[in-house]
């Protein structure tokens, strides 16, 4: 008994306060360490990459290794740009969006309309699993389904199919979440006026949740635009601009991979990465703006 009361009356306030402040300092320090990589990465991209970005960068094809080597020997800047990558990325992303957006939005609406059915829950679980599938595995799927059986060769379609599967879960979940925000009353108002169900979806639900849907789509696009691994197995890359869905196509991340593997073209990796990063950032900023705008109103 005496021992216990002794412990109770020890004044350790000082010690506890010291421990408290040490912990706070540690938290601040570790938080600063956490955000330092992003600052280092962005500054590295800007410092090393900005020099190569000029008009040619957006209008010329990627150089081959010989052109790059001779430019290097003569001490000139590497000629050419990444226009085949930019067009390829846009092409593949648009194809993927065309496949994923309708299916994603309609499935999202279905899940919202049938909240507690076992089938809807089942689809929801599958969507969750799909979201966790590594992108390289989706590359294998694109290869097995499309490269081997439909286009009989590496193709833009195969890459965009893999990326579409990646986009789907993101769009489905964001659609379902946004639909929850649409007031029940305006749907009922429509129904009371005898508006058919498909017109309520098209004219009431989708327009009134448009900004939310856009945000989800933009975030999904920003997630897939930098994907390299699935494209390595599906679209392969191409030295020319290609807009045919059954032909190999280049993409900015694929070009970065090629430049990285070719000692003569190292100079181009930073400018291409800066471009890609900038693109992703702009998409993120736009979607943030939409969210902020919505919260204001």
């Amino acid at each position, binding site marked *: 008994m005496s021992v216990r009361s002794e412990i109770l009356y020890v004044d350790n306030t000082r010690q506890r306060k010291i421990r408290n402040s040490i912990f*706070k300092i540690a938290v601040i320090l570790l938080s600063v360490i*956490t955000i330092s990589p992003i600052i*280092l990465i962005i500054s*590295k991209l800007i410092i090393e990459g900005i020099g190569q970005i000029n008009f040619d960068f957006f209008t010329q094809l990627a150089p081959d290794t010989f052109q790059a080597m001779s430019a290097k020997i003569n001490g000139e800047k590497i000629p050419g740009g990444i226009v085949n990558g930019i067009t390829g990325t846009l092409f593949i992303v648009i194809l993927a969006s065309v496949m994923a957006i309708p299916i994603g939005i*309609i499935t999202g609406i279905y899940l919202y309309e049938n909240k507690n059915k076992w089938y809807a829950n089942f689809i929801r679980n*599958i969507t969750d699993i799909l979201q966790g599938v*590594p992108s390289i595995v989706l590359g294998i799927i694109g*290869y097995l389904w499309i490269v081997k059986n439909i286009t009989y060769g590496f193709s833009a379609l195969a890459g965009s199919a893999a990326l579409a599967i990646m986009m789907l879960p993101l769009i489905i979940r964001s659609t379902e979440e946004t639909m929850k925000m649409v007031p029940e009353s305006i749907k009922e108002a429509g129904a009371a006026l005898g508006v058919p169900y498909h017109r309520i979806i098209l004219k009431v639900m989708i327009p009134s949740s448009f900004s939310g849907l856009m945000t989800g789509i933009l975030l999904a696009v920003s997630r897939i635009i930098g994907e390299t691994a699935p494209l390595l197995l599906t679209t392969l890359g191409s030295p020319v601009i290609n807009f045919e869905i059954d032909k190999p196509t280049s993409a900015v991340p694929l070009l970065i991979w090629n430049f990285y593997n070719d000692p003569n073209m190292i100079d181009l990796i930073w400018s291409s990465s800066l471009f890609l990063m900038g693109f992703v950032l702009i998409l*993120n900023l736009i979607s943030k703006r939409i969210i902020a705008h919505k919260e204001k109103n």
Partner: protein
Amino acid sequence: MKSEKITRYVLFAVSFIILLIFAGMVFSLAGGAIPVFKEYGLKFIFSSDWNPTQGREFYGALPFIAGTLLTSFVALLICLPLSFSTSLFIAEYYHKTRVAKFLGTMVDLLAGVPSIVYGLWGFYALRPVIISLGLSDQGFGVFTSAVILAIMIIPYATSLSNEIITMVPNELKEAAYSLGATRFEVIFSVIFPNARSGIVASYILALGRALGETMAVTMLIGNANIIPKGLFSTGNTMASLIANQFGEADGLKLSALIAIGLLLFLITGIVNAIGKYIIRKMS
């Protein structure tokens, strides 16, 4: 009324596509993996020999399973203190202040960096540091990849933990403060016990991300088809092996790579299912 029925059927049919895609994925991966399992049986999973030389062909996936698990768990260990501190900074110490918002935006930006850019940064900025510290000769290996992976999964671990930490009721915290508890004590005896399962789930989901990462790891792990001997040894992960060797593969080797894809699919699926299960049980 008839058009309403049609609309409902269309919605149902489109949602069914998700099921078809998923079933098709399982079917195709399993179908592609059959030849290698027929040839080697379970030895495919438990053998550490990977030899594509013709005539002495043998494919065992153990080095890559070990490499994947090792890099991901080391990444998780590195990520833990960093993202836990960041969550406390954003959701507790400086909740709703400008500096917390800035920190949150920076962490979100981490999620936007493409994997290949992480790889480049790891190769040109992190690797020289590892070499100059004398940790390994070439700077490639499990540790280098794990550091980059840790940075990559921080946003996933942090954003969920933030939400869960802010969900801890204020009354509980205030009750502890009124008894004279310090912030440190509130964090470890009120916030942490209340948010524990959610925080654990967020780390499990982050682990799921790390398991499947490809490009950055491919550029940094050294691509040696061996079981990593230690933290600074080179190795290969399942994803990086597929990225490296899929291009020129056919026959049994292609089947082996697809089988590794199937294993990766199963492992990430199980890890994610555990994480989601914990979250669902919470709410």
